[in-house]
């Protein structure tokens, strides 16, 4: 290694995509999070994409055990974690092999040469060493013996075992990346102080390794360039970086406070929804009651009980869990009680791809119950707006007295982005329908004439004692009724009640073009990728391409048909085999829909979207 300092050039960039890849025990998620947090605090817009295996600690060096974390930072608006990467940090051969395809030609790859042993190359199914056989000739490869350098940096720190030493090599990599992008180390050093509180040796070690990586990069002439990414222009205010699942949990906290109700969560752990349970379990100081139930059914069951007794009740799950909850959800619909069910969608069917993203639970959310059983279905579309839609789910369920399914997905739930912090005082009012006093002629199934919602009479209120149940009910008294006309009437009222929600939700917006050649339609978590693609088309001079992204699915916004008819062609893009498009076809006769579907457990890529849009434009 040379110590001669050479003049390195400095280049300003609008945006950069960095991907960290290594073994699932290499701390790639943490490394990536530190880089994105630091960049956000610097003022960049950011988006992240964690991509990790379902195994907790998959066998070292294996191809399927690679854990990756991609960060997209920019001085411009960032709406996706990016397709191709400007810099790949590969901690071992498997990390290189599984991620090389994403690196832009001619761009940088940092590798830990110490990990390129015969054994690791074999595990990654390399027949020859890619660092030696010329296969990386088209890239700027930065070879660093990171493990040895980390050991060297820590030789004087006492009280460290071998494992702790080698485990901190991810901080060497991070230090190098910080230097390359002119990032401050301060945030990460503060993070060490908090994370390793009471363990001074670990604070010292991680700080030393981070600094060692930083200085190594500075002095190394192997790195020809460093880059600056200026702060982005974002609305002024106070921000924080937030993960979708945290934003969802916080939306519920805000809704509970605003509505004056206590929050109850009945849940059963399931990937990728468990973080909502973890987050809400922390907040007992707000009086949150969280029950980790014995199964998915008890999760929703306890929430229905809590709702009956007057709490704002939530249950959280992912696809297979929603399947288990479906009978109980039908009960909640039949009782006409408020209840929010969060489905953080993952790859299906069955156990499917637990750690990968997909949008394939839509039809289950819409129809996955016995009988005529409509519920409100809404979907969040970015990590940050999980907050808004969790809040909105509570508002709708409390004001309309019917369950709401909130769909998010692994991509936005685990992704993080800057969130302009919302004070509860800025949020719209929530008017629940609890009645505290007996009225003379009150009936349990009397309805508000505008919303068709019934009152919420909770146990403990004298004079309002009544029985509810899953059997069909008389339209007024709620007593069991087998009268044929009553059953048909109630079926229609329950459907009409959902339809009426249209009067309380915003119109569908169209971005980029109000009318014209092609309308790109999406829903839920694909917003960022679709937005970026349509924006790129628009800025490259293609006109007449609009984007209509749905957050409200049942009911659809009132102006949906009018929007659809403004465009010559419509393409519905979904991470499933065509579920939303089937809903649109069913609702809007005579409109023809093209499709773009991807079912790989991965988000849309920018290039594939643009290619498809251009084909359709002819």
């Amino acid at each position, binding site marked *: 290694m040379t110590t001669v300092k050479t003049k390195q050039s400095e280049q300003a960039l609008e945006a950069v995509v960095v991907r960290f890849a290594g073994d699932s025990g290499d701390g790639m998620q943490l490394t990536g999070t530190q880089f994105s947090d630091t960049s956000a605090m610097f003022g960049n817009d950011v988006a992240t994409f964690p991509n990790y295996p379902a195994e907790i600690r998959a066998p070292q060096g294996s191809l399927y055990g690679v854990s990756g974390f991609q960060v997209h930072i920019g001085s411009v608006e960032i709406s996706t974690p990016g397709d191709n990467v400007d810099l790949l940090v590969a901690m071992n051969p498997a990390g290189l092999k599984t991620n090389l395809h994403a690196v832009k030609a001619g761009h940088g790859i940092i590798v830990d040469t110490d990990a390129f042993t015969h054994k690791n190359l074999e595990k990654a199914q390399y027949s020859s060493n890619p660092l030696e056989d010329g296969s990386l000739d088209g890239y700027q490869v930065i070879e660093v013996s990171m493990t040895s350098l980390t050991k060297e940096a820590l030789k004087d720190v006492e009280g460290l075992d071998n494992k702790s030493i080698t485990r901190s090599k991810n901080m060497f990599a991070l230090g190098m990346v910080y230097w390359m992008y002119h990032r401050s180390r301060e945030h990460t050093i503060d993070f060490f102080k908090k994370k390793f509180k009471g363990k001074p040796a670990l604070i010292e070690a991680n700080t030393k390794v981070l600094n060692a990586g930083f200085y190594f990069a500075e002095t190394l002439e192997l790195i020809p360039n460093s880059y600056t990414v200026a702060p982005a222009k974002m609305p002024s205010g106070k921000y924080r970086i937030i993960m979708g699942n945290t934003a969802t949990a*916080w939306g519920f906290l805000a809704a509970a406070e605003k509505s004056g109700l206590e929050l109850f969560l009945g849940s059963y752990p399931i990937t990728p929804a468990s973080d909502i349970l973890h987050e809400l379990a922390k907040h007992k100081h707000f009086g949150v009651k969280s029950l980790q139930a014995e199964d998915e059914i008890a999760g929703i069951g306890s929430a229905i009980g809590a709702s009956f007794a007057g709490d704002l009740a939530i249950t959280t799950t992912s696809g297979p869990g929603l399947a288990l909850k479906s009978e109980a959800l039908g009960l909640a619909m039949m009782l006409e009680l408020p209840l929010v069910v969060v489905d953080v969608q993952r790859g299906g069917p069955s156990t499917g791809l637990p750690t990968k993203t997909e949008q394939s639970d839509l039809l289950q959310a819409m129809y996955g119950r016995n009988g005529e059983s409509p519920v409100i279905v809404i979907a969040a579309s970015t990590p940050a707006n999980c907050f808004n839609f969790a809040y909105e789910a509570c508002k709708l369920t409390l004001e309309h007295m019917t369950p709401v399914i909130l769909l998010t997905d692994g991509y936005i739930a685990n992704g993080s982005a800057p969130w302009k912090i919302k004070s509860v005082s800025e949020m719209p009012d929530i008017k629940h329908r609890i009645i505290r006093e007996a009225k003379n002629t009150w009936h349990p199934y009397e309805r508000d004439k505008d919303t068709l919602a019934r009152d919420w009479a909770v146990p403990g209120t004298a004079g309002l004692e009544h029985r*509810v149940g899953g059997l069909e009910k008389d339209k007024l008294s709620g007593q069991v009724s087998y009268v044929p006309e009553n059953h048909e009437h109630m079926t229609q009222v329950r459907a009409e009640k959902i339809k009426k929600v249209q009067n309380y939700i915003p119109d569908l917006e169209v971005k980029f073009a109000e009318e014209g050649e092609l309308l790109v339609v999406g829903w839920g978590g694909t917003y960022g990728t679709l937005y970026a693609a349509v924006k790129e088309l628009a800025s490259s001079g293609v006109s007449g391409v609009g984007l209509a992204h749905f957050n409200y699915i049942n009911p659809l916004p009132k102006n949906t048909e009018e929007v659809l008819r403004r465009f010559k062609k419509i393409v519905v893009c979904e991470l499933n085999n065509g579920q939303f498009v089937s809903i649109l076809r069913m609702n809007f006769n005579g409109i023809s829909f093209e499709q773009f579907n991807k079912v790989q457990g991965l988000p849309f890529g920018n290039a594939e979207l643009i290619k498809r849009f251009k084909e359709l434009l002819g």
Partner: protein
Amino acid sequence: METAEKQYTFKDFASDQEVRWCPGCDDYVILRAMQKALPELGVRKEDVVFISGIGCSSRFPYYMDTYGMHSIHGRAPAIASGVKLANPDLSVWVITGDGDAMAIGGNHFIHLLRRNLDINIVLFNNEIYGLTKGQFSPTSTVGQRTKSSPYGNIQPPFLPGELAIGAQARFFARVGGNTPKEMTEVFVEAAKFKGTSLVEVLQNCPIFNNGAFAKYTDKAVRADKQLFVEHGKPMIFGKERNKGLVLNGLKLEVVTIGENGITEEDLLVHDAQMQDPTLHQMLVRSEYPLVTGIIRGFPDITFEERAADKTEKVKRDSNFHKTDDLFFSGETYEVD
């Protein structure tokens, strides 16, 4: 829980709905016993909630003029848990049957007992599926011929008390379906007990399994075949009140007072409050005599108490009072 100002009678708890069980069903006895027990408790009517699952028994809430929910098959314990956690001041009852509690709802049943929420379960055990018209249940006996076991049932049964105590039930009582006075007493004690209480009622189904418990519950044999245990009292039974239970090694043994020098002092004295459930399990399993009454009533901390303790401690130590305190805390940054 607030005390009722009004002195209720059983009529106050009867709803305006016509009761629709089969003539001669013990469910009528249970309904009346409950309507008589509640006034004795002094709870306010509006604070009483009945949650049931599915089955004949689960129609029960419709007939009580309290809050109630006829829910879905097997899930009443989960729903009742949510009710109780949302409002611990309520008197919460689960009404269930042998199929509802121990087949489809077995998981929720054992977990409610394990957690020990202050909820009262009344289990109508008739050893048959009634509402679906006569299939064997998890408590049906081996060999029992039913519509779904035409050549005799081959599935060994659960003993509800054994399963419950195995799941850490702190309170278990058993009563015959034709003994309303004892039943009312047991309901009152179950309600007063802080923690999950389980009362198994040996409920005769006159249509599909008539006489299933007759060998214990018929008036003619009841005194000789049943031992109604009471905490602190010797275990005596028999028409002549001369039979009793002693422990011989690891076995219960029936002895006769006055024979072989046995006196009342030699008999086991019932201790329902023992933490160790070994003897309670033996009493549950005893076939002669069949043991009724409150077999186990071990006082323990409830789930709600544990939850309240935690919440109070977290609230005391926390700087977060409003959600804004949380949202604006930690790593935030300003964009100009």
